[in-house]
């Protein structure tokens, strides 16, 4: 067997919280030109997903990717800090680049019945804010509304937000090294998560 979990997630987990305080632009919004490029990057990502080009989609991530969607629980107000699952707990996704590749290979088998015939999806991405994290890194937040229509009338809506750690590559492109996805749901109102976010 070749299980996908040879790498513990902690190894791959960058730290979105560790902001380089010596970097003077830290926390500042990027300028209009860079903001435009970031926005186009996210729109193109959405296109790849909606076109089902998952292998190409994987290329937007860096090799040390940590791709994570924690659970959301209802908590008493004084324990509200616990309402987002912690790393190391059960999660919707807790992935490395390898494990995402492994999930994508399944779709190429021709026998992944939950997506055969394939669903129609539309990834709507908005509310993008990009801030400097370090000399060549951004912290980008975005919101998504993903519509899925399957077979005749089956319809799912996935709403949520993402916080990405984005590296600016030498050629001025972007690579995501960490993505945290927060679904706006307690009990997931969909029979599965067979697209990506």
């Amino acid at each position: 067997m070749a299980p996908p979990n040879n790498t513990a997630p902690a190894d791959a987990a960058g730290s979105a919280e560790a902001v380089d305080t010596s970097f003077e632009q830290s926390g500042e919004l990027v300028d209009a030109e860079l903001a435009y490029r970031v926005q186009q990057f996210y729109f193109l990502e959405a296109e790849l997903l909606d076109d089902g080009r998952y292998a190409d989609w994987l290329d937007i991530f860096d090799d040390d990717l940590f791709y994570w969607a924690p659970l959301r629980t209802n908590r008493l107000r004084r324990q509200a800090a616990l309402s987002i699952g912690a790393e190391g707990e059960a999660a919707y996704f807790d992935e490395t680049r390898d494990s995402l590749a492994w999930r994508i290979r399944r779709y190429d088998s021709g026998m992944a019945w939950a997506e055969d015939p394939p669903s129609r999806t539309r990834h709507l991405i908005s509310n993008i804010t990009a801030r400097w994290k370090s000399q060549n890194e951004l912290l980008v937040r975005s919101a998504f509304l993903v519509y899925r229509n399957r077979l005749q009338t089956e319809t799912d809506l996935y709403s949520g937000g993402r916080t990405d750690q984005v590296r600016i590559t030498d050629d001025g492109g972007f690579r995501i090294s960490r993505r945290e996805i927060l679904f706006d749901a307690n009990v997931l109102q969909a029979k599965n998560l067979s697209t990506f976010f």
Partner: protein
Amino acid sequence: MSSDSSNTSPANQAIGTMRRPPLSRNIDVSTLVDADKGLIDRSIYTNEEIYGQEMRRIFARNWLFLAHTSQFQKPGDFFTTFMGEDPVLVAMDKQKNIRAYLNSCRHRGVRLCRADEGRTKMFTCTYHGWSFDLAGALQSVPNQDAYPEDFQKENWGLIEVPSLAVYKGLIFGSWDPDAEPLEETLGDMRYYMDAMLDRDPEGTEVVGGVMKWQLEGNWKLAAEQFATDWYHVNMSHASALMVLSPTGKGPKPEVVATPGRQYLSPKGHGAGFPTHPKSRFDAAPVHEYYDYDALRERLGDERVEGPLTTGHATVFPSFSYLPVNGSIRVWHPKGPDKMEVWAWILVDKSMPQEVKDAQRLYNLRTFGPSGIFEADDGENWSEVQAISHGFVTNSVPLNFQMGVGSEREDGVYPGTTSELYSDAAGRSFYRHWATQMNTPAWHETQHKTAEDQAESDQ
């Protein structure tokens, strides 16, 4: 529920003379299930009245899984869940006893605790402010002076789940105050459960967080599949088997044709497992962690070579598990057409953290809402359900005939077993279901006149 709530703890004595007339008729389901010939009528997955009868005679009667003991460490730790469609609050009281209550304020019935889990000293209703302590007792009532003199708080404690029992970390509750002991209900099923629950002398614990999702599909479709259905694995999960296999091309024919056994309990439980040493789908770090010689000594060769390899199981009616994936789950009924899955990740307590992590990741990548196996199961169940309301569709029985007559005592595994590829545990699941559906439950037989009974059974 019985009319006078005498099913509850001493805190909940009978109130007044309230009694319910029969509100629902009971349907004789004996011609909807032919467990001998292996035929099941599809109406049992779609009919509203049958569903209501299940709430009364299946879910209000049986031992139902509530939570894992590791979720309760200190007094005040609580977890909210469901028994059938009844909301239930499970809490550790001051004496560190785990207790369960109907999660509904005794005053005007609001859901008392709206958090999924947490820690508290008191449960205070947000409607009028009635407060209940961890023992379910009503502690304070705002403006109590305005109530009549004979109003007594001790009569208005939370409705307690009268029977609660723990089997190796798994907490089960039953609304039947005279429920048969859990261990008796489980019977030989314990031997198979222990292949998951008793590998480690320290026992098991759950990882934080319960994965929850809803899908179209009657709860029995899932419960029955986990009891009896190894057959679907090669087809339904072809894509998952392919990416998991060393060659990337799927399992070898000899693995597909794996021998194995399926246990069927007269009480509706079922468990299937291959006995081929290579038919195993476990996470490599977990496999490498186990000392198989020690496991053989602890659990016996047959159990290590059988139920511990891989497999599936259901404890009747709605608790299922997958030993090598460390998945334990409940199929909560949400109407005849819908279920809500709650899935926990189970690990051995003594595992080093990196092995627990490996088990957790393997679990959520295979089962759970994004799991590569789970997705295809959900697709099947929702597709069965989606077309089940067609009149003609609904009237054509389903086939459960694989392995008819194969049930026997095999001399190795306890109880009655069949082949790995068999519907035997499915047939016994539905046989037991039909028997219970046709037998009045505890709340119907207590405090009822013969006249009431005759009327409600007509």
